[in-house]
C-alpha cells in the first residue's frame, strides 16, 4: 500500500530564528561566565588572565541574549506574565527565573571587577563614577562569582532541558541535547575568547595557548558528545537517534548537514592541533574563530529550525523560507551587528593595562 498526501496543511515554525540567536548568545554567555568564575576561585595567573577576555565575551553576549529571547515571543509586550504567573512545572518558566539570577551575577561581578581595575589604574572621565567612593566592594565579589556560576549552570541545564522534554519532536528528546548544547557553547565562547585575546586585547602568547588548548578540549568533547549520543542511541534504540537515521536515510538535506558537521568539526580539530605546535600557529589561531562560531551557530540552526521543518505526522519536509524582515534575515544580522558593536566598545573598558589584575589585587586586599 502506498500513500500520497493530497490535502494536508503545512505547519509553520513556532520558534523563529530569534530562538537560534538566543540559544547561541546565552550559551556563550554562560560558558564564558564559567571561565570567569573559575578565574575567581582557582589560583594561578593564567586562569586569572583569562578573565578579561572571558568577561568581554560573557558580558557582550549576555546583554544581547535577552533581547533575542524577548523578540522570539509573538507577544513580547506581555513578557511580564512570566513574573506575574510563575509556573513551577514549566521549564520555560523556570528559565525566566534563572536568567535574571545569572544576569545579576554576571553584571554584578563585572561591575566590581571593573571597579577594582578603575581604582587601580584610573577610569576614563566619563566612567569616573564607576570608581568613586572609598568602598572597594571586592569582598562581595566571590559571592557574585558564586551567583554567576550557579546561574550559568542553571542556564545550561534549563535551555537544554526545555528542548529535551519535547517528546513530540523526536530528535530533541534526548538527554544528550543538554550535553551537546553546552559543549558546543563552550566551543563557541572559547573561539570568541581566542579571537578577543589575539585581535582585541593583544594577550600574551602563553595566555592564548591556554585558550587554544581549552578550545581543542571543547572540540574533542563535542565530538565525544556526538558519538555518545549516537552510540547510546544505537544501543538503546533512542527515539532521537532513530529519528536522525530516518532523516539521513530519506533526505539529502540531512545528509549534507551530517557530512558538513563531521567535516567542519574534524577540520577545526586538525587545524587547532596543528596551530598548537608552534608559537606562530598559536598567534594565528584566531583565524579559526569565525568558522567555530559559525559551526556552533549552525548546530543551533539545525536543532531548532531544521527540526521544526520535520512534520510530526505528515510525510516529507515542510519548506522553510527565511523571511527577509525582522523575523528572519534582518533579525539575525541585527543581533550580530549589535553584538559586534558591544564587542568594539567593551574591551576598551574591560581591558586592564596589565598593571593590576583585579583578582590578584583583591587577594592582596584580602591577605594584606
Amino acid at each position, binding site marked *: 500500500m502506498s500513500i500520497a498526501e493530497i490535502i494536508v496543511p503545512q505547519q509553520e515554525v513556532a520558534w523563529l530564528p530569534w530562538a537560534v540567536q538566543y540559544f547561541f548568545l546565552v550559551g556563550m554567555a554562560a560558558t564564558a561566565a564559567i571561565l570567569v568564575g573559575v578565574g575567581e576561585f582557582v589560583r594561578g595567573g593564567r586562569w586569572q588572565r583569562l578573565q578579561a577576555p572571558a568577561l568581554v565575551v560573557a558580558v557582550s553576549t549576555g546583554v544581547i541574549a535577552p533581547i533575542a529571547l524577548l523578540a522570539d515571543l509573538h507577544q513580547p509586550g506581555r513578557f511580564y506574565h512570566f513574573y506575574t504567573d510563575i509556573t513551577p512545572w514549566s521549564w520555560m518558566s523556570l528559565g525566566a527565573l534563572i536568567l535574571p539570577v545569572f544576569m545579576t551575577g554576571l553584571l554584578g561581578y563585572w561591575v566590581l571587577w571593573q571597579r577594582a581595575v578603575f581604582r587601580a589604574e584610573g577610569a576614563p572621565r566619563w566612567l569616573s563614577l564607576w570608581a568613586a567612593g572609598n568602598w572597594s566592594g571586592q569582598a562581595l565579589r566571590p559571592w557574585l562569582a558564586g551567583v554567576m556560576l550557579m546561574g550559568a549552570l542553571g542556564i545550561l541545564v534549563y535551555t537544554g532541558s526545555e528542548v529535551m522534554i519535547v517528546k513530540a519532536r523526536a530528535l530533541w528528546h534526548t538527554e544528550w541535547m543538554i550535553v551537546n548544547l553546552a559543549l558546543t557553547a563552550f566551543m563557541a565562547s572559547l573561539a570568541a575568547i581566542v579571537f578577543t585575546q589575539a585581535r582585541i586585547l593583544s594577550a600574551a602568547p602563553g595566555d592564548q595557548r591556554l585558550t587554544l588548548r581549552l578550545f581543542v578540549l571543547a572540540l574533542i568533547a563535542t565530538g565525544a558528545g556526538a558519538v555518545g549520543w549516537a552510540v547510546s542511541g544505537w544501543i538503546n534504540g533512542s527515539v532521537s537517534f532513530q529519528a536522525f537515521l530516518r532523516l539521513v536515510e530519506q533526505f539529502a538535506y540531512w545528509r549534507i548537514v551530517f557530512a558538513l558537521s563531521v567535516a567542519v568539526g574534524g577540520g577545526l580539530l586538525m587545524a587547532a592541533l596543528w596551530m598548537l605546535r608552534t608559537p606562530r600557529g598559536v598567534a594565528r589561531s584566531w583565524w579559526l574563530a569565525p568558522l567555530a562560531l559559525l559551526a556552533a551557530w549552525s548546530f543551533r540552526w539545525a536543532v531548532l529550525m531544521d527540526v521544526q521543518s520535520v512534520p510530526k505526522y*505528515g510525510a516529507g519536509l515542510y519548506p522553510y523560507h527565511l523571511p527577509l524582515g525582522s523575523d528572519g534575515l534582518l533579525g539575525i544580522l541585527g543581533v550580530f551587528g549589535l553584538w559586534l558593536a558591544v564587542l568594539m566598545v567593551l574591551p576598551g573598558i574591560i581591558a586592564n593595562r596589565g598593571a593590576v589584575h583585579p583578582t590578584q589585587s583583591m587577594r592582596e586586599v584580602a591577605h594584606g
Partner: protein
Amino acid sequence: MDVSRRQFLGKAAAVTAGVAVMPLSEAEAGLNDQPPRRGGDPNKRYGMAIDLRRCIGCQACTVSCSIENQPPVGQFRTIVHQYEVTDNASEETAAVMLPRLCNQCDNPPCVPVCPVQATWQRKDGIVVVDSDQCVGCGYCVQACPYDARFINHETQVADKCNFCVHRLEAGLLPACVESCVGGARIIGDLNDPDSHINRVLSENYDDVKVLKPELNTRPHVFYIGMTDAFIERIQGESGLWFDSEHGGVMGAVS
C-alpha cells in the same frame, strides 16, 4: 493484534465503561507534570468519535469552523486531510479522508510546558487557551505531537480547537459536528453511559483507534474505520507545497 493496538483497546474499553477520566492527583506538580485541572463540569468528560466510513471529504466542517472561530485565512482549527492510497498489487486507488483537530488529550503534553498558565485542561477534559494571557512563546505548539496548535497570525497567540466550548456551554453542538454532512462527527459525554458517543464507540469496539497511542497522550478523539497506516506518521509521498501570501497553505497534487 499488535501491542499498541491492544493497549489502546484496553483504553477504549475503559472509555466505554465510562471511567475515561483519570483524575490527576491535586498534589503539587513536578517539572513537566500535569498541573491540576481548572474549571468546567467535573462530572463530564467530552470526547469525539469520527466515523471515517461516513466522511466524504467535503470540508463542510473546515468551513463552518472557520466561520465560527474566525482563524486567519490559511490557518485551521480543524481540516480534513486527504490522501490517495494505492494498493500495490492491484494498483487500485482510493481516497482516504482524515478529519483532524485537537484531540483534547487526557495527558496533554501541550499544557505543562506553558510558562504562564495560559493553556490548561478543564475538568470536563477540554484543553483551552486564554488568549489574553498567552505570551505567544510557541512552546505548546512544539509540544503537541499532532500539530493541532498554531500561532494565530492575527492575534499572535496560540490557537487551537476547543470543541467549540462556548457553543457546548450554550447547549449547542460544535460547528463542525453540526455541519457534518455525513454525520461522521459525534461529540458527547464519555462519563454518561447512555450517551450517543458511548453507544457508537461500543458498537464499533474493535474498530476504534487513536493517533500515536504510544506517546501516552491519551487522545479523546476516536477514529472509527481507520487503516493502521494512519496511526503513526504517514510513510509516503508528501504533498507539493505552494506558497500563498499567508505563508504556505496546503499541498495539492494529483
